[in-house]
């Protein structure tokens, strides 16, 4: 192993200064130590790293977060309120028992990481940090290693049947300088199914990791709304391992956020499985900066699997949108169907879209494609709507909604899709008002 360049070494040690491996963490101790060793070997990311060429990670690697004032969300309707769901609430990364539901739901077993790591022979010990470690090749993800090493809490969910109610992890951000690190693990047993919702901003700066291990015929739906806090800085990671005939579907909505890096790492290990990852992001940099980065890495190592990536971004007033997507088809992963689309709508001349949609293919009987487009709003469509009496701001909003619709279509549940669509409308209205 080559020694780290001094800049990286120093930055890494500076980041680690205030962090201590937690004590009394039972079976996670070994995984945490391994992760720390990984982090030390890789060093924290630097903007000169190829994987960070479009996003400067400085704020994510600084010893302390830049303060971010919490938002008064009292004027905002509670998301998913019309759905019967089980809520687990974290305030700046700290579990809030009072606001949370009883962690009991039919078809699954839920326990918090802080509790579970004390019990021996826990099912999650084979997964915690393991999927993250696998996701470190061929690209380093030091912030994910940091997460595994220092996670303060999280939720472990083992799904054995078809869970009737979605499980929602609710994040609240109340402290200007909170810097939580949360790590969740989901195991979907054969034929089981779960819908996991994540809503809100977890802190001034936060680092989350979600490891999802789906057994054969399992199904997992993941719907996330990252909240609309302006100055927050976020690094999120999702690592999924898919068994035969399993289904993984994930959608993320991002409104605002000074810096967001969402990494999705998906590996097909069983045949005939399906993974869809989608995202819609809108940012207006008028008052506070907006920088949003979707980084996806899908590895096809099984036969006849299908992957779809659909990412849409609407950018205004110096907002920056980034997409780095990769489909890797390994030798022998025949009959792969890989699709990837990244599109952005630039509402003015100050905004930027930076993309690197990659294909790396070592099997011949595959159909893989990617597309990427960037441009302004269609003047003709705008003119058409205005000629029909729609005022210009509303016409523009309609076209924005239509543009984002393809990503929202990836959501299977209509009620959830409608709730998220409404969020976008509210955001547009608020900006207009």
């Amino acid at each position, binding site marked *: 192993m080559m020694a780290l360049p001094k800049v990286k070494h120093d930055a890494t040690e500076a980041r680690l200064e205030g962090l201590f491996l937690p004590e009394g963490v039972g079976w996670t101790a070994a995984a945490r130590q391994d992760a720390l060793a990984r982090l030390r070997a890789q060093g924290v990311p630097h903007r000169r790293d190829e994987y960070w060429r479009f996003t400067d990670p400085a704020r994510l690697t600084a010893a302390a977060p830049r303060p971010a004032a919490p938002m008064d969300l009292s004027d905002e309707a509670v998301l998913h309120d019309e759905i019967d769901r089980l809520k687990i609430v974290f305030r700046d990364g700290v579990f809030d028992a009072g606001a949370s539901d009883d962690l009991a739901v039919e078809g699954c077993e839920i326990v918090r990481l802080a509790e579970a790591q004390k019990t021996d022979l826990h099912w999650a010990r084979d997964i915690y940090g393991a999927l993250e470690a696998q996701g470190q090749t061929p690209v380093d993800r030091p912030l994910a290693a940091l997460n595994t090493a220092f996670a303060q809490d999280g939720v472990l969910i083992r799904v054995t049947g078809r869970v009737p109610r979605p499980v929602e992890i609710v994040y609240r951000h109340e402290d200007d300088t909170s810097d939580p690190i949360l790590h969740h693990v989901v195991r979907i047993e054969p034929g089981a199914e779960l819908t996991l919702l994540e809503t809100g901003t977890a802190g001034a700066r936060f680092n989350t990791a979600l490891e999802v291990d789906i057994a054969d015929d399992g199904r997992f739906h993941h719907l996330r709304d990252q909240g609309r806090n302006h100055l927050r800085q976020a690094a999120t990671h999702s690592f999924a391992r898919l068994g035969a005939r399993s289904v993984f579907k994930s959608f993320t909505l991002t409104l605002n956020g000074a810096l967001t890096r969402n990494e999705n790492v998906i590996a097909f290990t069983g045949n005939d499985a399906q993974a869809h990852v989608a995202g819609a992001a809108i940012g207006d940099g008028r008052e506070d900066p907006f920088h949003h980065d979707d980084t996806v890495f899908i590895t096809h190592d099984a036969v006849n699997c299908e992957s779809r990536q659909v990412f849409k971004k609407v950018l205004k007033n110096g907002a920056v949108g980034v997409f780095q997507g990769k489909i890797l088809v390994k030798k022998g992963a025949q009959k792969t169907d890989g699709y990837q689309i990244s599109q952005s709508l*630039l509402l003015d*001349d100050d905004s930027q879209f930076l993309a*690197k949609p990659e294909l790396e293919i070592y099997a011949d009987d595959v159909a893989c494609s990617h597309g*990427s487009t960037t*441009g302004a709003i269609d003047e003709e469509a705008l003119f058409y709507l205005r000629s029909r009496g729609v005022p210009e701001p509303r016409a523009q909003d309609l076209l924005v909604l239509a543009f984002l619709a393809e990503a929202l279509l990836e959501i299977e549940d209509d009620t959830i899709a409608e709730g998220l669509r409404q969020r976008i409308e509210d955001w547009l209205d608020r900006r207009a008002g």
Partner: protein
Amino acid sequence: MTDQIALQDKVKDGVEKETVDAVAALGTYKHGWNTEIEMDFAPKGLNEDIVRLISERNEEPEWMLEWRLEAFRRWQKLDEPDWSMLKYAPVDYQEQYYYAKPASMKEKPKSLDDVDPKLLETYAKLGIPLKEQLILAGVEGADAAPADARDLDGEPATGERRVAVDAVFDSVSVGTTFKKELAAAGVIFCSISDAIRDHPELVRKYLGSVVPVQDNYFATLNSAVFSDGSFVYVPKGVRCPMELSTYFRINAENTGQFERTLIICDDSAYVSYLEGCTAPMRDTNQLHAAVVEIVALDDAEVKYSTVQNWYPGDENGKGGIYNFVTKRADCRGARSKVSWTQVETGSALTWKYPSCILRGDDSQGEFYSIAITNNWQQADTGTKMIHLGKNTRSRIVSKGISAGHAQNTYRGLVSMHPKATNSRNYTQCDSLLIGGECGAHTVPYIEVKNNSSRVEHEATTSKVDDDQMFYCQQRGMDEEEAVALIVNGFCREVLQALPMEFAMEAQQLVAISLEGSVG
């Protein structure tokens, strides 16, 4: 030669012998022979003395030597890039010859009788018509020969080819044809070594202005040790009366070829430029690191076409050329246009990104590419379109075909700067895989920094369609013919962008390159 045995077996089924022979003839690299010719080598290895020696042999002025030495000093501080998807054993830069010149070229031959017949033969074998052959062999005055010149066998020369050729044999340019006719039009077409001597003001002004000395590892190496290459200047308002062409031949063993091409197209001028390359079959890898710079001023148009057919190595991946090339065009003037078309079938390694800097308002850049890799070949190729001016347009069409154990990567950048308003890019990258042991990769970078521009990128990867194969085969084609036909169809958009005679050659090359990839 198991393929041939297999083919012979098939004859029993009533296939004509001719067909078998024709297919078998396609099998091998056609230009893999070697000319036994006495060469004048510089000592092996690379150091300041070698740089001085090259400069001295080319009778260069002091400023050129300084330029080279500066490049060499910078090169020593650079690291070889490792970001490409090419995997190869490290190149030992001290194990190469950096200068090799046919001994017979020491003094320019005055008549046909003086020309080393081996040199003549080389060009005859490469299929270059006689009238040019006389000139290619460096015979002074041959370009004034009557149009009905006879070739060596006394046969009348067929047709009139309006292509001027500069032929580079290892490190030196052995001759440039049609010089006088071009000069009458005001076009300067000569070797770069002649240009440094005869047109220093142009060379000083433009050399290194598109690809700076310190641009990248291989370009910096080239700047230090380039031995020859072609120089073109098309003056204002001139439409170059014929196509210009450079033919690069690496012949000597363990010799690197480092040529430098500089094309300047002045206001409202036009030139079409063709480049061809071949090399003998050798067991060791040979280095080729070229730099091509194009400057297009207001309303100028340059069309640059390449058929790259360096020796690709044998079916076990032994030997072949390492091809590290920097090609860049600066569309400096308003409404200028540069079009790159490349057919890359040769080389063991290809590292090449012909690019356009669209600086002038309303300027245009095009990149059409076919990259075919078979056996153990590796190609990492693509383009950069850097939009700086307003209303600039670019189009990228890339077709990658991978067979055998080959790896084929498209790598490209489309960048729209904030001031490049109302610009447009369309990119299409298609990859075709033949067989389960090869790889096809796409690594595009897209950077859009204004909203009045439109950028579209599409890429697909697929295999040769079973239905198309079935259709062709039930019409009586064998598998190989069917693949060649389908692949030619797949490449059609790019083949159409080539000048006519290159297009024919390229079509055949597509078939030859894929020989042995099916079945």
